[in-house]
């Protein structure tokens, strides 16, 4: 009941601070006068009476401090004072402040940057309606291992009818179509979706409308929705685009809506169309084929259903499928269906990398903190006098500690501001990095949560590196006054604290260096992998033919052969080839079941990855022909069907037998294909993925293609214009895109391990430098404190190299202790890296040895400077000052 009144009273005192001070002065002066008067009347001389009154009353300043505390100075006023003291002390020593702000800025900046990614990707809820209920449904196989098989329309219809746990099942796939009607023909990435797809995600259109059920009926007018990015990019955000008509797949498409700027799921697309408008998806052949699995399927958990229940539900439906359709789902293939939360699905690949990086930057910050704490500790020695003076003037111990903490927090906040600027500067790089793992990269940015994190990190940092020096500070007036020299300070407590700080710095640095070293070595191993082809001087491009214009085999064959003819007549090109896709260009295997002539037909047919290439393909990319022959121009549609297999295929299906001359056929087909050659293995889907069994068919006999590859005589990038010109001379409306050298393709395929290794390397290097500075600083301080001792030793006959060895021993002792701790920590933690490593175990002894050697070397170098200073101590000078 009295609380509000009390608060009001205190707030009033805060406002009337000046008056209260003067009133207190008057009150205390009166008190003193009356006391003195009393003493005088007891017979003392005036002077004596006053003196005695002062003594009996105790310190006036202490009383004032006590009053200020009571007035509420504990909070606002004291904070203001502390901040003022802190700023003054920072101004007095700008070099120290700069060192601290720089060190902490690096640490906090790295943390802010990585946190902004973690926040955007892992922490923030998906920007869709009820994201926790959204699931991805996946059909999978164990043999061959296929984590996501896709769905056919027939399967989707059956799941819709049978599922008791998931509602609103929607489909998605993405195609690349040619869009006409603008200035030039454009290739647009097109999301093909159920009409309810956007309602399912809870995305409302920015303009116009999303799809309706009647857009998807057979024969409905074709409609398009533009993504926000494409709308801004291509139409400058013009709202009049709604209602415009574009030509696509040989029919008019009307734009009915524009999406808001939300990250698109599961991929970024330029435009969207309902599934009936996709010529491939809605063809009768695709719809009737239960095995034509091109759809991704997503659904919403029914209210009150868990994802575990949904998983059991879809798995039981899959079992029923297998029983009902033994032809489509062969026994032994391990066919089943599962469901995962969309949140997990989207962040699955990013999570381990981001967590490792977050741990790394946390380490960097801790190391930076330790260094700054050390700086503060050594400065403390010089400040003991000042602190003792403040204590003498009435500052309580708690108040002194608070002042020091305020000062360190101020420094940390300055470091935070600096760090924020660093993070903001590096954000674009990080967004590009994140985009390799997840579609959520667009959500990475500096928002309230990130600012809050930086603030929290700064304050915690300030308290962390400020607490240790503040607690070891014992401003004892008498002690300090007795010491004639400020240099002599630093008792056992602070010295041990400094040693411990160095030991932990070394330990954390070692762990970071191990992480970086493992990633670098793993990346190096990845680079050493022979891809099976020679990427230099090869230029690649994507030419995905307009599906409706070139629907017939003959048309595609004609286009392809004409293109090759023109390219091969160019003197700058050594050879040219067409293929389905480019190795290492993030494509998916085209798995097919097949039979081998003369072998019993098993229920469980073997699988191969089917590829189509033109005769000079192997020459062009430099893939070896091991046995038999490559394709020749004579292997055309008139000639008998032939194939070339890779070594993995030959080994797996023919063992020691010679595959040449043997015949195979696709599941459900009757035409036999003769194997005429064996080529070397190529890393098709990633340098870290073992080659699979591949079968190549000649383009002329199976005319599907999507990529052009040319081997040039000189720098391959220069052939880009030539390549585009050749395509456009045949069909000016045919887009050519993704023009990259094969070397670039290869480099891009390992970009994410490279950037991860690079980031970890930079963090570890920063940590190493900070640690080296820490070791050197602590040792230098110790040397300057031991100058007299060293002088005595030398006067007693110690040689300079002995003195140097003594100091080196002291420094390296700390380093070795830290190293031992670091090895233990690294062994415990490096298992977290296991999933990110290729070709080496997380306990790789080479890395451990190399990192330990590097750390020791750098530490020894850091110790050398103070050790030499110690050795150069002049005993005469040192003793004179003793």
């Amino acid at each position: 009941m009295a609380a509000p009144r009390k608060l009001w009273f205190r707030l009033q005192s805060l406002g009337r601070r000046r008056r209260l001070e003067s009133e207190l002065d008057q009150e205390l002066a009166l008190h003193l006068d009356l006391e003195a008067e009393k003493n005088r009347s007891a017979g003392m001389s005036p002077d004596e009476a006053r003196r005695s009154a002062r003594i009996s009353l105790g310190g006036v300043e202490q009383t004032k401090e006590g009053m200020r505390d009571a007035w509420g100075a504990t909070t606002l006023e004291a904070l203001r004072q502390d901040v003022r003291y802190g700023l003054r002390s920072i101004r007095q020593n700008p070099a120290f402040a700069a060192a601290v702000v720089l060190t902490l800025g690096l640490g906090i900046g790295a943390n802010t940057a990585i946190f902004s990614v973690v926040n955007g990707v892992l922490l923030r809820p998906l920007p869709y309606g009820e994201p926790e209920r959204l699931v991805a449904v996946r059909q999978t196989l164990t043999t061959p291992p296929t984590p996501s098989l896709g769905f056919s329309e027939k399967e989707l219809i059956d799941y819709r009818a049978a599922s008791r746990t998931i509602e609103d099942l929607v489909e998605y796939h993405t195609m690349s179509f040619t869009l006409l009607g603008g200035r030039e023909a454009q290739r647009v990435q097109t999301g093909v979706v159920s009409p309810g797809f956007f309602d399912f995600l809870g995305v409302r259109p920015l303009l116009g409308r999303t799809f309706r059920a009647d857009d998807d009926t057979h024969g409905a007018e074709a409609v398009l929705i533009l993504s926000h990015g494409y709308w801004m990019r291509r139409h400058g955000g013009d709202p009049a685009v709604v209602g415009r008509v574009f030509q696509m797949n040989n029919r008019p498409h009307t734009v009915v809506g524009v999406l808001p700027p939300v990250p698109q799921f599961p991929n970024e697309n330029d435009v969207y169309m309902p599934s009936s408008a996709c010529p491939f998806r809605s063809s009768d052949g695709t719809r009737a084929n239960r095995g034509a699995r091109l759809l991704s399927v997503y659904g919403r958990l029914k209210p009150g259903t868990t994802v575990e229940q949904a998983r059991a539900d879809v798995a039981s439906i899959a079992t029923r499928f297998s029983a009902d359709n033994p032809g489509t789902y062969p026994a032994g293939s391990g066919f089943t269906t599962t469901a995962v939360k969309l949140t997990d699905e989207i962040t699955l690949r990013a999570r381990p990398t981001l967590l490792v990086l977050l741990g790394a930057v946390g380490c960097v910050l801790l190391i930076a903190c330790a260094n700054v704490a050390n700086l503060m500790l050594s400065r403390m020695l010089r400040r003991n006098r000042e602190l003792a003076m403040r204590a003498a003037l009435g500052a309580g111990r708690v108040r002194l500690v608070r002042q020091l903490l305020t000062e360190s927090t101020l420094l940390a906040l300055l470091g935070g501001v600096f760090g924020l600027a660093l993070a903001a500067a590096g954000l674009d790089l990080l967004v590009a990095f994140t985009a390799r793992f997840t579609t959520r990269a667009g959500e990475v940015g500096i928002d309230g949560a990130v600012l809050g994190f930086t603030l929290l990190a700064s304050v915690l940092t300030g308290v962390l590196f400020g607490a240790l020096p503040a607690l070891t500070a014992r401003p004892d007036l008498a002690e300090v006054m007795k010491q004639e020299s400020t240099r002599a300070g630093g008792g056992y407590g602070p010295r041990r604290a400094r040693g411990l700080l160095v030991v932990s710095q070394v330990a954390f640095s070692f762990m970071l260096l191990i992480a970086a070293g493992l990633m670098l070595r793993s990346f190096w191993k990845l680079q050493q992998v022979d891809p099976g082809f020679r990427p230099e001087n090869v230029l690649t491009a994507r030419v995905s033919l307009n599906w409706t214009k070139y629907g017939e085999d003959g048309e595609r064959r004609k286009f392809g052969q004409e293109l090759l003819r023109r390219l091969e007549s160019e003197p700058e090109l050594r050879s040219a080839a067409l293929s389905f896709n480019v190795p290492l260009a993030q494509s998916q295997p085209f798995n097919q079941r097949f039979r081998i002539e003369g072998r019993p037909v098993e229920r469980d047919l073997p699988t191969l990855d089917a590829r189509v290439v033109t005769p000079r393909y192997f020459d062009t990319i430099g893939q070896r022909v091991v046995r038999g022959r490559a394709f020749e121009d004579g292997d055309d549609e008139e000639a008998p069907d032939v194939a070339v297999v890779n070594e993995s295929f030959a080994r797996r299906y023919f063992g020691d037998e010679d595959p040449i001359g043997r015949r195979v056929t696709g599941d459900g087909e009757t035409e036999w294909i003769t194997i005429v050659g064996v080529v070397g293995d190529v890393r098709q889907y990633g340098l870290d993925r073992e080659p699979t069994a591949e079968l190549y068919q000649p383009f002329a006999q199976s005319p599907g293609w999507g990529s052009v590859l040319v081997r040039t005589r000189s720098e391959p990038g220069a052939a880009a214009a030539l390549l585009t010109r050749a395509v456009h001379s045949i069909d000016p409306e045919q887009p050519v895109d993704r023009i990259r050298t094969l070397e670039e393709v290869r480099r891009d395929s390992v970009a994410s391990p490279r950037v991860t290794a690079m980031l970890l390397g930079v963090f570890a290097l920063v940590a190493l430098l900070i640690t080296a500075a820490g070791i050197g600083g602590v040792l230098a301080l110790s040397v300057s404190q031991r100058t007299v001792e060293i002088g005595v030793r030398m006067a007693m006959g110690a040689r300079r190299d002995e003195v140097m060895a003594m100091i080196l021993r002291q420094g390296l002792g700390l380093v070795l202790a830290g190293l031992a701790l670091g090895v233990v920590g690294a062994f415990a933690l490096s298992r977290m890296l296991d999933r990110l490593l290729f070709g080496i175990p997380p306990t790789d002894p080479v890395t451990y040895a190399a990192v330990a050697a590097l750390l020791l070397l750098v530490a020894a170098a850091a110790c050398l400077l103070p050790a030499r200073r110690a050795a150069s101590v002049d005993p005469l000078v040192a003793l004179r000052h003793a």
Partner: protein
Amino acid sequence: MPEAKDSRSDLLQGTLDLLILRTLAAGSMHGWGISQRIQAVSDSVLVVNQGSLYPALYRLEAEGWIASEWGASENNRRAKFYKLTRSGERQLAREQQQWQRLASAVFRVLETA
């Protein structure tokens, strides 16, 4: 809380408040007067240091148990006079009762145990 800086003033926590309230029950008084009065009545056993007195006065005023006003002192100087409020009287009665109960309990233990 202000720290006790003088060993003579380590009265039981809250006892100083009680002494001040009781002293002011006799009439309004300034700070020095309160300390002299306590010292005199206690035969100089209790010496109230100004370092404890003024923060205590401020605290009691914040609680609303005493009120202050400026007036003229014996030597005709401006002085701040404190007086007991109504709620201060009630608080005094409560604290007095509590103190007496505690004192007599301690006394009984000393006598009989």
